[in-house]
């Protein structure tokens, strides 16, 4: 490999050697310290070999003496290649010109892309960019992106974060807008739920109820002041109740663990079972899964394989003690209660009341007491509740 590169670098000739006793001729050449390689035998008086470009002229005295003929067949290597290129000056200048233009084109700004705009008009940004000195065809090197970022942040108030970066010849601008706090809406404050008011703090407006009052949902709590705004915190005690019921005996389905699988073929709408067709258990749970044999795009054969999994089940009658039944009834009631509550509400206390307690079943009522903010802004107050 290295010798090949060396030969290419120095430049070499493929020569045809003609004459008598060529073996000795080659020996003489090598004796002169000239390197020959790839010597091929063509006929007894015709050999082909490779020789370095500079060594070729050294052969001349020997050729005169020996009456041998040497003819160049091919010129190879870098020196010859350069010579060829020199002849094609225009091609070379074309290539160089292309590279220069390419490099120049790649170092200019060609387009802008703005992302992340929601409320700000794109034209506002573009105008600000122009003021910052960005225009089409400007050299990328001349722009200091960090400076432009700062300029835009100063100029446009609604931007909270901006990032400029290059993507080839395109300038990508990422913008995050400021979220402006919405002004307080005008209206009155009404109760969102029924309850007894425990705490009433009026921030704006005038209260029409006082602590200890019982209010119903939708009742007016705070009237707006002169500027039409009403704000306040109204905490109230609220009750939730639910009834839970549980019988002392219950049927429970239990898997026995036994399982059998049958397979079959479904042709059209007809099920053809392979092997046994009767269910293997008295009481069972059946799971049937289908699998299409051939499916491609929306073409499919009307034949499907199916699998039937029979799981044996045992039905057990369970008897609860009085305490167990009570617990289950409470659990059911609590589940019903919790579904009524909003997230993040603190439960103050829980009461329970047994409504019915017989031999067969138990019923109880569960009441929970919470304290929550029931202040709710009702817009567009027209004077009526």
């Amino acid at each position, binding site marked *: 490999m290295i010798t090949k590169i060396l030969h290419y670098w120095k430049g070499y000739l493929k020569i045809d050697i003609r004459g008598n006793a060529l*073996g*000795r001729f*080659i*020996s003489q050449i090598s*004796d002169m310290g000239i*390197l*020959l*390689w*790839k010597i091929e*035998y063509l006929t007894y008086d015709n050999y082909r070999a490779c020789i370095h470009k500079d060594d070729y002229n050294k052969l001349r005295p020997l050729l005169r003496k020996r009456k041998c003929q040497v003819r160049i067949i091919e010129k190879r290597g870098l020196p010859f290649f350069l010579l060829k290129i020199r002849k094609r000056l225009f091609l070379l200048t074309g290539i160089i010109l292309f590279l220069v233009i390419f490099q120049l084109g790649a170092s200019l700004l060609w387009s802008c892309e703005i992302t992340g705009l929601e409320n700000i008009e794109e034209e506002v940004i573009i105008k600000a960019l122009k003021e910052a000195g960005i225009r089409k065809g400007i050299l990328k090197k001349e722009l200091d992106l960090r400076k432009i970022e700062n300029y835009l942040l100063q100029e446009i108030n609604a931007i909270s974060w901006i990032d400029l970066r290059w993507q080839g010849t395109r300038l990508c601008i990422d913008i995050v807008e400021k979220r402006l706090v919405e002004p307080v809406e005008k209206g009155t404050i009404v109760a969102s739920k029924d309850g007894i008011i425990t705490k009433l703090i009026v921030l704006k407006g005038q209260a029409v109820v006082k602590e200890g009052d019982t209010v119903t949902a939708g009742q007016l709590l705070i009237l707006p002041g002169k500027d039409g705004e009403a704000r306040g915190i109204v905490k109230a005690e609220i009750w939730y109740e639910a009834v839970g019921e549980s019988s002392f005996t219950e049927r429970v389905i239990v898997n026995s663990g036994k399982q059998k699988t049958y397979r079959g073929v479904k042709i059209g709408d007809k099920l053809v079972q392979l092997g046994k067709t009767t269910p293997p258990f008295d009481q069972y749970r059946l799971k049937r899964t289908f699998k299409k044999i051939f499916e491609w795009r929306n073409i499919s054969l009307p034949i499907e394989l199916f699998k039937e999994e029979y799981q044996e089940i045992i039905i057990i009658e369970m008897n609860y003690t009085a305490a167990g039944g009570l617990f289950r009834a409470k659990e059911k009631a609590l589940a019903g209660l919790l579904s009524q509550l909003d997230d993040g509400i603190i439960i103050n206390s829980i009461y329970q009341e047994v409504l019915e307690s017989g031999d067969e079943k138990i019923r109880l009522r569960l009441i929970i007491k919470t304290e929550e903010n029931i202040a709710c802004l009702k817009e567009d107050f027209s004077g009526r509740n």
Partner: protein
Amino acid sequence: MDKLKRQFIRVFELPPDIIMDLPLLMLVADNKLYLENHKGISYFQSEEIKIKIKYGFIIITGRNLSISEINRESLAVSGKILSITYEQRGGDRP
């Protein structure tokens, strides 16, 4: 003189190919042969190459033989090598 040289080599355990200018062959499988200390080519064909060495010839037969490199001291033969023969002529065997 040669006798003296041989004695010298034996005593100092030197490589004889360097001191005595004797041929050194290296064969890679059957397709490449390197030969150092040759005295020129006396005959070259694609089936047979006869290389002059000190005290004789080395004859290589094969198919598609070519001399892939030759300079003053060494040469390399490539192609399918079938046999290598040593032919002694003149002088004492080392």
